């Protein structure tokens, strides 16, 4: 009589149970939505913060000044050598003449600069880096290139960015981790409450000779369905909330410098993550909740 796996039965029992215990199912979905929204909102803040910090990092560049004795052609010939220095991603050349013109344009109202000779400035390269954390080492490597007179780098500012970014990432990870555990606990208790009403059914099944696996599967299906439902609701709610917040940030005076990542561009990450976390807390919560009642 015994069959090993009756997927149709587990599916129908799990789905049927969602509707027969409608209020508890609703409560569980609400909890999953709330947990995902809190985690999602915090993660999105962290991601946007990270992006804005990243943009600021990219603006942080090194100025590599070439020896005064080098002609422009000779200075340009160093481009290949500089571009081969580790961690260098992008370099831009600026001749001493262009540098002077730019300087004059920038400070046109200062007559002190009017009679400067053409060679008052040095030829220079502006260098962008792949990893700003290695700025000190990159500066050292660039200084070692023959023909480089001086390298100017805002090492302290760059290290400050790195520190802020690392702290923000660390805090985000810890908080998301804590929220995940708290969510699991809340869901487990919500489902435990739902399961409590059904302890009699479980006890009867056990007395009839049902295996733990057989009893567990419908609850897994139920947790899976509730988790997915909660994930989808949370995904669309998060979308709405994000759009609203982004609109307000863009329109505000104080925060208008911030650039917000578009929600649509993150859908391929957010949707699977929400579904994954929703299913994890739904199924995990079910399994934790039912464990106690199986000990008959």
């Amino acid at each position, binding site marked *: *009589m015994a069959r090993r796996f009756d997927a149709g039965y587990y599916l129908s029992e799990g789905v049927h149970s969602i509707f027969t215990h409608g209020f508890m199912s609703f409560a569980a979905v609400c909890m999953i939505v709330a947990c995902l929204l809190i985690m999602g909102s915090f993660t999105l803040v962290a991601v946007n913060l990270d992006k804005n910090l990243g943009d600021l990092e990219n603006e942080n560049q090194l100025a590599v000044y070439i020896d005064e004795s080098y002609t422009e052609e000779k200075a340009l010939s160093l481009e290949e050598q500089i571009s081969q220095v580790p961690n260098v991603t992008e370099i831009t050349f600026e001749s001493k003449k262009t540098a002077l013109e730019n300087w004059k344009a920038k400070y046109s109202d200062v007559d002190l600069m009017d009679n400067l000779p053409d060679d008052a400035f040095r030829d220079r390269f502006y260098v962008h880096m792949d990893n700003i954390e290695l700025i000190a080492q990159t500066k050292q490597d660039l200084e070692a290139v023959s023909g480089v007179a001086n390298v100017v780098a805002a090492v302290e500012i760059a290290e400050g960015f790195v520190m802020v970014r690392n702290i923000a990432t660390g805090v985000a990870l810890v908080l998301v981790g804590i929220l995940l555990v708290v969510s699991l606990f809340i869901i487990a208790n919500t489902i435990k409450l739902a399961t409590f009403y059904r302890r009699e059914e479980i006890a*009867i*099944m056990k007395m009839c*000779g*049902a*295996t733990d696996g*057989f009893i567990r599967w419908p609850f897994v299906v139920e947790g899976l369905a509730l988790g997915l439902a909660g994930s989808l609701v949370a995904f669309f709610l998060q979308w709405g909330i994000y759009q609203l917040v982004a609109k307000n940030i863009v329109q505000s005076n104080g925060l208008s410098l911030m650039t917000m990542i578009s929600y649509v561009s993150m859908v391929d990450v957010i949707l699977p993550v929400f579904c994954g976390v929703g299913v994890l807390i739904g199924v995990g919560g079910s399994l934790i909740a039912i464990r106690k009642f199986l000990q008959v």
Partner: protein
Amino acid sequence: MIRLIDVYKEYDNGTKALKGVNLRIDDGEFVFLVGPSGSGKSTVIKLITAEIALTEGRLMVNGYNLNNITPRQVPYMRRTLGIIFQDFRLIEKKTVYENLSFAMRAVGASNREVRRRIPYVLKLVGLEQKADRYPGQLSGGEQQRVAIARALVNNPSMIIADEPTGNLDPQRSLEIMMLLERINELGTTVLVVTHEKNLVNRFDKRVVAIENGRIMSDGTGGYYNGEKI
């Protein structure tokens, strides 16, 4: 077949519920297990159904040695038993038919097996007309019949009835006991735990009396409370 050899049970709180119980129930027997409250009757049932583990001694149930049974084997051992409770333990939200099919599906029966078996069992307990009723729409006696049907539906080799008539009036109690007797005549071993003296004495069956954790008397054709044994 059930075999208890020098079985002792001491609970975590220090209560010594069984003190060297020896009992053998062969296939096809009808046995009353009688005794006052706190005598150890329920402990015997819980040991047989593997709800609790014994402290000392040996226990065999329908070919399973409960001294070294694994958790994975327990459900299969329980499938050899049909258990009836005093409070019926029916699922209120399910109809009579669904209560029975629930028990069958719990052991992996197919829809076809469910459809074939349930009408037969309902006819056996006289409830074939009430398959679509909910427990709340039935009398106490009828609810206990449903519980008996549920115990029978998986075709166990033994029925264990724990105070099956405790919630019923004398007439319904007699009907339930006659039904159990009929089931026994069809080949199923029946163990009835009760303290209803008058009821036991109406049947000419084996009576095992337990008191203070020990078997005080065990005799066929005897009467409860030592009046004849």
